[in-house]
C-alpha cells in the first residue's frame, strides 16, 4: 500500500461515526460510507491535489447523502435561511415530551444537523465546514446557531420556535 491507501483507511472510523449520526442507523450509514469510499477511489487521481483529505471525504459524503435523502422523497419546498421562524403555540401543558438526544437530532433539518455534528464530532473549524459543504461561513454560523438552539429546546422539552412544522 502506498501512504495514500493507508490514509483513506485511516479515515474510515471517523466517516462511519459521522455517517451513523447523520443516517441514524447502521445499515444506511455503512451504505453511505461504502459509497463515499467508492467515489473517493473513483477520483483517486485527484488525491495529490487534495490538501485537506478530511474535508474532501466529508464533502463527498455530504453530496451523496443529500442526493440519497432527496431522491426517494416527494419534492418539498426548501426554506432558506432567511425564512422567518414561526413561533408555535405551546403544546398542551406548556410542555413537549423530553426527547432523547438521538430522537432530537433526527428532528433537526439536515442542513443544521450536519453542521452541529461536524463541530461536535469532528471539531472542524468553521472555515473548513464552509469549504466542505460549499456554503458561505455566515451560513455555517447561522445554521449552527439555529441547530444548537433547536436541539437545546427539544432536549429541554420546551415549545420552541420551529419552522413550519409542529412537533408533538
Amino acid at each position, binding site marked *: 500500500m502506498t501512504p495514500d491507501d493507508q490514509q483513506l483507511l485511516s479515515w*474510515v472510523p471517523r466517516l462511519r461515526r459521522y455517517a451513523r449520526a447523520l443516517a441514524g442507523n447502521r445499515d444506511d450509514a455503512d451504505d453511505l460510507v461504502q459509497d463515499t469510499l467508492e467515489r473517493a477511489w473513483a477520483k483517486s487521481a485527484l488525491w495529490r491535489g487534495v490538501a485537506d483529505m478530511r474535508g474532501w471525504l466529508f464533502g463527498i459524503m455530504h453530496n451523496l447523502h443529500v442526493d440519497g435523502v432527496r431522491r426517494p422523497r416527494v419534492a418539498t419546498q426548501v426554506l432558506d435561511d432567511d425564512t422567518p421562524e414561526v413561533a408555535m403555540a405551546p403544546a398542551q401543558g406548556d410542555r413537549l415530551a423530553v426527547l432523547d438526544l438521538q430522537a432530537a437530532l433526527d428532528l433537526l433539518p439536515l442542513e443544521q444537523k450536519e453542521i452541529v455534528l461536524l463541530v461536535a464530532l469532528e471539531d472542524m473549524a468553521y472555515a473548513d465546514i464552509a469549504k466542505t459543504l460549499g456554503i458561505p461561513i455566515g451560513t455555517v454560523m447561522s445554521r449552527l446557531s439555529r441547530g444548537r438552539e433547536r436541539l437545546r429546546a427539544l432536549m429541554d422539552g420546551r415549545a420552541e420556535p420551529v419552522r413550519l412544522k409542529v412537533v408533538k
Partner: protein
Amino acid sequence: MNPINDPITEAELHAFVDGQLTPERHREIDATLAQRPEEALRVQAYRDQKRELRALFDPVLDEPLPQRVLAAARPRAPWYAQRWVAGVAIALLSGAAGWGLRGAWSTTSATGSALATARFAQRAAVAHAVYSPEQRRPVEVDAAHEDQLVTWLSKRMGAPMKPPHLQALGYALEGGRLLPGGQGPVAQFMYRDAGGRRLTLYVSNEIGDLSPAASGVRGGNPETAFRFAREGQLNVFYWVEGRFGYAISADADKPALTDVASEVYRQLAAAAPEPAR
C-alpha cells in the same frame, strides 16, 4: 475595556464554545459571561450537547469495520480493472463468497453508487416477481416476433436491445416487454426452462449515469463489478456496464445463475461495438 458593555455576537458565543477564538478574545468573553447568566447557560447547554453527542457516537470508532466497508476502503488491485475477462472471473468468485447473505452486496468494487445499483436490482426483482407467474401474458411481444421485439425495444431504449440466446443453458426466450424504470423505460426479457421456471433479464439505461465511470471521472474502460442480491426465494445477479445496468433474476441456484450471467455477459460483450477512441 469594560467587559459588560462589550457586545458578544452570536457567532462569537459559538466560537467560544468550540474554542475557535483567539486566546485573547476567549479570555474576554469568559470574563464577560460571569455577568451574563443567560448566555452562560446557553454556553453550558451547548457544551453539554457536544459532550453528549460524542458519548453517543464515539463508540462507533471502536467497532470492527464491516467487511464491505473494509473492502471499499482498499485500493483496487491493478488486475481488477484491466479487462472485463479478468473482471468476470474475479467478480464471480468474490460474489460467490458473499452469496446467501441477504442484502450483502459483493464486497469487490462497484461501478456506480451502491445505493443506486441496489435500488436498480430491487426494481428488477420486483419486475420479475410481477411478471414471471403470468401464465397467459408473460410478455408483450413473444419470441416468435423477435425481430419486432428487438426493433421496438431498441427504439424505445435508444440503443440496440438484442436478447441473448440461452438455449445452450436450457433457457428458451419467451419474449420481452417495456417497463417503467426510475426515470424512463427499461426492457425485460423473459426466458423459461424445460420445467417452466422463468428467468428474466432486466436492462436499464439509467443506472450508468450515476456511475463515476459514466460521468467521465475515471475515463477509459469502466470496469464491471458483479453483485448478488437475494429477495426471498429469488436470486438476482446484477452489474453495471457503461450506461447500462443488467439484472438477471430467477428462482434458480447460484451455479445455474452464474452460468447464465457469464453467458449473457459474453454475448453482450461480443455484440458491443468497440468503444470510440
